[in-house]
């Protein structure tokens, strides 16, 4: 894997945006991880259509078709070879008949230039031919001469373990429709396999692209950049990437890296994935929700489209599951497997003799002992979250100072690593370890204290020692209480092995597990539960409905979720009016699926014009889709709170977010230095500007779907009330009622969970009823981002959900009953007048 290796990083690619997909306690935030600034990207990839002709002179085989336009819809019944042959013929004839291009053929004849790709026949190329094409002086994809750097990179590429098996890979690829490829981290599969496919698919002949999915947006971006460098093309041209809110592909694009979620969204409008001739699902072992759904969809499409090739790539050796899943028909043998060994060294594993009382303490101690007695080599310590990591870093650095003073220890540089860390600080982990204080003294080294983002997604060279306390934060969802939270949980055996493997990247290493061997064998589960078993599925179910999947119950999940999870999702979508009582997709549901948002947020946004505040709700939705914009540094909490109080609206955190955003935009309009302004006001410029960008994208979708953008005049006294009411249109299922007037305890509606308002709130006098954005489960149960509401609004805005007969006996039911009577009386009085 190349992600994060300094050699392939470019300063402008927001490389470290993998953002706490796993570390932030909120699916909305996680969703926001997929957001990245596009403005900058689009500037960097100017539309090249005007230059097209000029460039074509040097192109050996100009692409005349749009990559999306030539979808071979009719040809699905023909055999692939036949259809391809016909199609390429058609292109060639078209080319000759095109009077505008007549000069091209002449030029080609005059030059005598012959592209190495001309000799190659699609789906029967050899590794030798491909190597020859790669070695040629002229880039077969652009027609331009290869740069010097290209050949330098080419040499290192040929050294990769996967390179030795290129011929074997092609042979297998030609023979089968679906292939399972196993290559450990470091084998080069993510960058090389798509290129091998490129030289075999010859997409310029068919007009069909090759797609390679990645679970993380950072990976998609950085790998695309790397592969563009390796092919000596410009990123966004022949090689591009597409992630949520950012598309860097062009008409010439042949190979496209994308997040799995992005391919899933694309498939909603192209259920046969007809624009692709080969789809590669990378990192399938991570079993993200989107990859799982894609596997099921692709399995289905493979029946219909025999010309579509599928490669499932995994980094772990338990590939049988994929193989047997991808045997298309019952009688078929399992999908063939190709395995490439990674470049790894042996790792010695040590266990503690007794279970640890405090794993953070034990981890700090172990790091110090390694530093004191082990030979040279960097240390990687896995902990669970920001707070814990910062705490451990502090403790280690204090102790090391003493060690240096008292016992002649070498220098130790300590770097934290977690998703909310600003990119420039994340980049530091690639700094060289400090040198020893004096020649022949104890070695200097660096110690990286990281969350499990360091487990698979990035490679740090030089790590020789891994300290593994055995925990990570994992998303968990339980449909019974509708709790969705990130909880510290023991890792799986597979995860522990992956962590240990990190020590053997550069030379033989050691892994210190802070638990007993018995605990490893008895207490750790075999595999981490796939995300689909740990997630709220309402978004997924909506997507599947949009894709036209009728029978969700028998949908071919690789690991089917619990029935109750699906039941909850259907129920929620029904309450949101996205599905009718028969499970059919409603107009609203269809519209909601157009937004890359959770259904509740999408519905809130779509219904906001009814409350005369769609502009404001659009801003709030964007702000809820990015990580926390508030910054509260440990050493300056009081000042940060004072600053936040400036924006505070007494009735709600949602309104406070909006105020902060308006102030930010105001500062921007006044021509202030926005970065400085943000810094002074303890706001995150990074997250505010990405919210701004998300807002622009969502606005475009609203405009396309003709959703009005309106506002209540600011000096109207209903301005904030309208917004509070509009929040309920999407979040009426996330409401809590105060237990008694002098208590701080709230009870969530229908689920009856006891919660408190998160201390970060600005709501000064909480009402009896509040709407909340998320339920946070730690050792306490909190609701976060809270706004005061009036219970009458609930009856009015969500009468079906607040039908009293559906409530269980209790305080909430009696409160609602009293309320209904009051409302009735009032109406009767009005009517009587």
């Amino acid at each position, binding site marked *: 894997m190349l992600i994060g290796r300094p050699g392939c990083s470019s300063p402008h690619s927001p490389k470290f945006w993998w953002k706490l997909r796993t570390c932030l306690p909120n699916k909305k935030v996680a969703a926001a991880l997929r957001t990245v600034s596009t403005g900058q990207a689009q500037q960097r990839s100017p539309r090249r259509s005007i230059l097209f002709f000029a460039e074509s002179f040097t192109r050996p085989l100009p692409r005349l078709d749009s990559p999306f336009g030539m979808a071979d819809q009719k040809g699905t019944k023909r055999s692939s070879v036949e259809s391809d042959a016909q199609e390429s013929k058609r292109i060639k004839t078209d080319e000759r008949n095109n009077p505008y291009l007549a000069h091209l053929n002449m030029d080609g004849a005059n030059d005598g230039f012959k592209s190495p790709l001309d000799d190659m026949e699609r789906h029967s190329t050899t590794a030798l031919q491909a190597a020859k094409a790669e070695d040629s002086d002229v880039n077969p994809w652009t027609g331009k001469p290869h740069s010097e750097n290209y050949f330098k990179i080419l040499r290192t590429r040929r050294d990769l373990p996967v390179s030795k098996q290129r011929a074997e890979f092609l042979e297998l690829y030609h023979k089968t429709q679906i292939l399972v490829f196993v290559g450990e981290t470091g084998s080069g599969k993510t960058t090389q396999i798509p290129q091998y496919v490129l030289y075999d698919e010859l997409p310029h002949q068919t007009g069909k692209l090759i797609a390679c999915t990645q679970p993380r947006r950072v990976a998609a971006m950085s790998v695309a950049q790397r592969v563009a460098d390796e092919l000596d093309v410009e990123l966004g041209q022949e090689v591009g990437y597409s992630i949520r809110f950012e598309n860097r592909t062009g008409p010439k694009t042949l190979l496209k890296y994308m997040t799995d979620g992005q391919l899933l969204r694309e498939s909603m409008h192209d259920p046969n994935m007809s624009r692709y001739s080969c789809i590669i699902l990378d990192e399938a072992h991570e079993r993200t929700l989107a990859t799982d759904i894609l596997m099921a969809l692709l399995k289905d499409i493979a029946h219909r489209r025999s010309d579509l090739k599928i490669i499932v790539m995994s980094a772990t050796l338990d590939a049988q599951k994929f193989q047997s899943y991808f045997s298309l028909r019952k009688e078929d043998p399992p999908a063939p497997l190709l395995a490439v060994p990674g470049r790894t060294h042996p790792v*010695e594993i*040590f266990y*503690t003799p007794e*279970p*640890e009382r405090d*794993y*953070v303490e*034990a981890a700090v101690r172990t790091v110090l*002992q390694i530093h004191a*007695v082990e030979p040279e080599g960097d240390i990687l310590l896995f902990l669970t979250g920001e707070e814990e990591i910062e705490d451990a870093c502090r403790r280690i650095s204090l102790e090391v100072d003493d060690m240096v003073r008292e016992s002649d220890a070498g220098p130790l540089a300590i770097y934290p690593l977690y998703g909310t860390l600003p990119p420039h600080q994340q980049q530091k982990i690639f700094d060289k370890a400090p040198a020893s204080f004096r020649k022949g003294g104890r070695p200097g080294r660096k110690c990286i204290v990281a969350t499990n983002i360091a487990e698979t997604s990035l490679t740090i060279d030089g790590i020789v020692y891994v300290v593994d*306390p*055995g*925990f990570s934060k994992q998303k968990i969802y*339980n*449909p*019974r*209480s509708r*709790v969705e939270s990130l*909880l*510290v*949980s*023991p890792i799986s055996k597979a995860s522990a092995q992956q962590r240990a493997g990190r020590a053997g990247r550069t030379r033989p290493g*050691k892994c*210190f597990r*802070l638990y*007993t061997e*018995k*605990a490893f064998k008895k*207490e*750790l589960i075999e595999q981490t*539960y796939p995300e689909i078993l740990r997630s709220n599925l309402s978004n997924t179910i909506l997507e599947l409905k949009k894709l036209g999947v009728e*029978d*969700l*119950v*028998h949908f071919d*999940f690789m*690991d*089917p*979720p*619990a*029935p*109750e999870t*699906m*039941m*909850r999702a259907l*129920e929620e979508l029904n309450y949101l009016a996205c*599905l009718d*009582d*028969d*499970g059919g997709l409603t107009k609203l549901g269809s519209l909601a699926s157009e937004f890359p948002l959770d259904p509740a947020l999408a519905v809130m946004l779509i219904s906001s014009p009814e409350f005369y505040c769609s502009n404001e709700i659009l801003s709030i939705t964007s702000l809820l889709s990015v990580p926390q914009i508030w910054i509260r540094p440990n050493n300056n909490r009081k000042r940060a709170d004072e600053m936040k109080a400036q924006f505070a609206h007494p009735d709600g955190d949602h309104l406070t977010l909006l105020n902060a955003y308006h102030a930010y935009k105001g500062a921007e309009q006044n021509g202030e230095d926005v970065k400085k302004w943000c810094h002074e006001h303890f706001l995150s410029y990074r997250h505010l500007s990405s919210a701004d960008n998300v807002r622009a994208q969502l606005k475009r979708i609203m405009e396309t779907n003709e959703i009005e953008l309106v506002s209540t005049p600011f000096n109207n006294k209903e301005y904030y009330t309208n917004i509070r009411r509009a929040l309920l249109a999407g979040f009426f299922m996330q409401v809590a009622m105060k237990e008694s007037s*002098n208590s701080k*305890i709230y009870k969530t509606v229908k*689920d009856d*969970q*006891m*919660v408190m308002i998160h201390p970060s709130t600005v709501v000064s006098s909480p009402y009896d009823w509040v709407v909340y954005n998320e339920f946070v489960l*730690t*050792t*306490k*149960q909190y609701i976060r981002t809270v706004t005061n509401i009036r219970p009458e609004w609930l009856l009015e805005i969500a009468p079906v959900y607040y039908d009293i007969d559906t409530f269980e006996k209790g305080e909430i039911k009696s409160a609602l009953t009293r309320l209904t009577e009051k409302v009735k009386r009032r109406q009767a009085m009005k009517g009587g007048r």
Partner: protein
Amino acid sequence: MSATNNRPAQGEEEEEDDYMSPLFLAPPTTSSSVPIKESSLQRRLRLKREAEARGRPKSKAELAQEAELQREKAHSTSLLSSKPQSKGLAMMAKMGFKPGSTLGSSTSGSAEPIRVSIKEGKEGIGLESERKRKLRELVENMEKTEKKQKVEAVDYRERMRKEREEQRLEGQIRGAQKVAEGLDTDRSKEKGEDIQKKLLRSLPVLWRGLVKAREENERDKRMRRDLEQHAMSRLPTYDDEDEDNDDKKALGKKQTVYEMSEDLDEEDKELDEFNGLTAEEKLKRLVDYLREEHHYCFWCKFQYPDEKMEGCPGLTEEEHD
């Protein structure tokens, strides 16, 4: 409350107890039976107390416990049987779902959602189960000792006598083993063999246990000393380049080879079998062995010159009285 008030023993403490009530003499009723009428005074007091309990702000621990209880309650009730039936379930039923089955095309799906378990504190993996195991052992032991005590109370004296007898026998066995070891060693020295160099397994089973216990004891001591000296080097891989052989020896790091202990940890069925015998039987075998091999009478404490063993009164201890 009223039930307890009617118990005379406790009634004394309760000032408001109504001694004139006919209920005072009635046998105490369990709370599950017909509710007892409470007087207006009692009622007022009860309501007051209840109101106080309600009004009192709950402690954090209580709140946490209550919240956890609510959560556990929610997590342990399946939604599939909830009333009224969920619309989501109705939709699934239309697609052919039957309660009790799983989703997906095969039957491999999970039927239950993954449990939410909240980790408190920073305890390492395995600590909780270790603690539970220890607690369980403690309880089991307590049960065992309780049982024992019941039996023992009956014939305490008999048990004490037996114990004393056993102790005496054990002492005699150890004595006999020592004598046997001494005699055997002497004899093998005469033959020119060095019995000390032999493996544990090759020693006569009769006194092998003695040597084994000694060896184990010694090894423990050695390890404890090693551990104390290496408190600094807890990592199992510790190896300081600066130390030369002398340092290592001085620090006790250089491993000294104990020949006898090589097979110390190996399983020894023969020995186990021997140890399984009763004390009387063990002693008898030892005494017989000494007599046959060395013409030594354990009871006379004398090694006779020939196998006739003239002057020895007999085989048993009693005969020597």
